[in-house]
């Protein structure tokens, strides 16, 4: 009976496509070209593909971990199962803190975009407050509502923002790509390391896996989501490579937004205002998903009710968002989060996977003997 009751809160495997894609493409897509360009120059698109393939492997590993551990719960369970109660909970707290920081950096970065290009005089607290109030309304509706928002966060920007990116092709210099493989393999891999951060977001699957009906069946959708993310990044890097030259891109903080200034129709100019506005729909689901993951994690670790912890988390986020005012501070925070995310991806997940498969083999051997 409990199973049937729970069914109401689950999402069908298909929706994993939206949650994963939505959490991957965030604020980073506006600005990743600059860092990538520093490392890999016009060969950046190769780095994007390499990082994308790495992300495929990592997603595969996450699903394998859930399969091997035999648990269809979430990562908090698995940590305790493999690392014992004490160390496992330390890792779990690490996860919660990481998701909290993720929500914070996404929130702060987006507010920065708004402040720089739309409302220079408007205080951080206004947008922070309104976004977090909306987050409260969403997350208190449960995971299904959050996923619903993710769907909109994919569909609406895809229909409105994405087509605008193609207008600059009018001024394209396709020779910017040549010569291909101009940079050394090491440079390209360094670039790939920069881009890996942009694929971050699918690790939240570790928290909401138990909310997917027939978890393992969602694997193919997760992989398709990653393919789609890679496609979006490739399109963006392609257009920025042919539109900007290498020197130009170094001086632009948000090259994708600048691309948005190009399209013009008889009654609208400066499309980047529309892009920034609609970008709420890109950013907001990530914040909701991350905040939901935090409250869920706290529930699993400390048996804290989500309704109780949610307001506290939001207040913490609100206060924290007020502390980062200068560009350097925000960049510093961003660096911390992306480093943590990077090591979570290339360190923790493969390690857990190997440990899990080792344990499985060990156990099956023991049972045979």
């Amino acid at each position: 009976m409990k199973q049937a009751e729970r069914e109401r809160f689950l999402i069908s495997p298909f929706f994993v496509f939206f949650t994963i894609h939505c959490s991957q493409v965030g604020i980073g897509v506006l600005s990743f070209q600059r860092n990538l360009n520093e490392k890999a120059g016009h060969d950046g698109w190769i780095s994007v593909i390499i990082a994308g393939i790495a992300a495929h492997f990592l997603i595969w590993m996450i699903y394998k971990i859930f399969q091997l551990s035999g648990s269809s719960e979430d990562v908090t369970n698995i940590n305790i199962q493999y690392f014992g109660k004490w160390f496992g909970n330390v890792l779990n707290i690490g996860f919660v803190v990481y998701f909290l920081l993720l929500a914070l950096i996404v929130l702060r970065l987006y507010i920065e975009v708004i402040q720089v290009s739309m409302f220079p005089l408007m205080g951080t607290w206004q947008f922070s407050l309104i976004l977090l109030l909306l987050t409260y309304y969403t997350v208190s509706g449960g995971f299904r509502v959050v996923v619903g928002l993710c769907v909109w966060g994919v569909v609406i920007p895809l229909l409105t923002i994405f087509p605008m990116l193609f207008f600059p092709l009018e001024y394209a210099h396709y020779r910017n790509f040549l010569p291909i493989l101009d940079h050394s393999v090491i440079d390209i891999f360094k670039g790939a390391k920069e881009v890996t951060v942009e694929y971050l977001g699918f690790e939240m699957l570790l928290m909401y896996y138990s909310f997917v009906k027939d978890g393992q069946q969602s694997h193919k959708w997760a992989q398709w989501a990653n393919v789609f993310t890679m496609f979006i990044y490739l399109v963006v890097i392609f257009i920025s490579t042919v539109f900007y030259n290498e020197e130009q891109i170094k001086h632009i903080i948000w090259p994708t937004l600048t691309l948005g200034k190009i399209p013009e129709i008889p009654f609208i100019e400066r499309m980047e205002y529309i892009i920034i506005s609609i970008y709420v729909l890109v950013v907001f689901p990530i914040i909701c998903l991350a905040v939901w993951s935090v409250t869920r994690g706290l529930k699993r670790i400390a048996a804290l009710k989500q309704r109780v912890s949610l307001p506290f988390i939001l207040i913490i986020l609100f206060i924290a968002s007020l502390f980062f005012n200068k560009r350097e501070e925000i960049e510093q925070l961003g660096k911390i989060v992306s480093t943590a995310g990077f090591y979570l991806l290339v360190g923790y997940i493969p390690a857990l996977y190997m440990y899990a498969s080792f344990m499985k083999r060990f156990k099956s051997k023991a049972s045979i003997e």
Partner: protein
Amino acid sequence: MSIFSFLFKKNKLEKQTKTLSHLLKSLKQSSDFVHLPFQTNGHYFSIYYFDSLVDPKLLQQHVLCHLQQDLSEHSSLSIHDLQQIIPIQRIEVTADVEMIETKLLKGFAMIQLLDATDRCALINLASENLGLRQNNDSENEFSVVGPKVGFVENIGTNLHLLRRQIVTPNLIFRELTVGSMSKTKVVVAYINGIANDQTIETVIQRVSEIEFDVVFDTSLIDQMISDNSSSPFPSFVSTERIDRVIYALVGGQVAIFADGSPYVITGPSTLFDFFTSPEDYYLPWILGSFFRLIRLFGVMFSILASPIYIAVLTYHYEMIPKDLLGPIIFSRSNVPFPPTLEVLFLEITIELLREAGARLPTKVAQTLGIVGGIVIGQASVEAALTSNILLIIVSLAALASFTTPIFKMSNTIRFIRFPIIFFASFWGGVGIVFAICLLLIHLGKLQSFGNPYFVPLYPLRVKAFADSFIRSPYHLTAKRPSYLRPRTFWRYDPKKAKQKKDIDE
């Protein structure tokens, strides 16, 4: 507290021990309650009835006349013999005081034999249609093509109209009584074998749990059984059109009728149900789809036009191209207000016009339209209270909001424009998207009888798109929408309906 509970208990006790004489005594306080002592051929009767509820013709022709003439043939008379004498169907004989009370109050006459006063016969003499409309031309939900018969205030007529078109024994009416004062007859209608059992159960449970005194209209029931009563969006379609109700029933929904109300509730509803018009199905599918798309566009325009005007003119004037800047400056140069105030002024004017038009008698309302539309509009532009461009935008938005076929939904659209206007005036374009986000989340949270409201968009049901944004040809809509979880899926055989033939065959 204890005193009250004591009183309450006492009340209850009294009710239980009420006898017939008590009842008659209390009813006699009212001057329209008639006691008619009667005597023929040595039989003594008393006839009791409410003068205001009973049809005098029925009483004279079918009861009094037959009692006077035919009684002589019966030498000994028991109360059960009345059914043979009086030519009226279903004469009930009972000693239940509660039942006697409700039936008397519903327009029954009570006949009591003086020899045996404990049992009485109840005869239905209610004048069903007295003072009620006989027909309804469904002018509030008009369609040019198609039947123009609407439901009326009499529930018997309404059920008759329904059963005439759904000729199947599976059409089930379940009768309930709602309202402690009005004792309104409420009927839940569904088609057995199509409608989902769980939905039916939910509906009946919710309707029977209603605690209220007088049910004026189904819209009261609508509010009391809705899943989220603090939402501006209506949870259920309420319509006066027969074809709409039949379409809903055939699709697997449930309909709720109430006596005294020409509007019928159908549910579980989705957002798109409110934007479909029966005419979509009477026109060829291409035209039907086109008009439906126009309607949906109208809704979007109506909600977003004036907020976008505010956002662009207050914060994002860079977005206006050079060619357009000239006319805007020209029309706005004399306006002393910021765009927000300008829009609010005009929007509220339009709302006033609408509200006044709805409240005034029809003939006066026509004049009002002219006064409002031409005089106020033109004068406010000339007085430099608003700009010409805004006048066009706001009146177009008002026009677009009238395209919604269901009145409740068009009210909602009228309302939700205002929060978005405020969002836009505070945070510009970002504010508008905030508001849209809020709207999307709210719609995603809403439910109608436990069914998701925003289906087929979320949860995504690709197959149900056939009859949402567009109205697909009939061979594609042979299957009932899955989100209603109907018990049988096929409405008709699509292969027969399709019949694709080769060229020249």
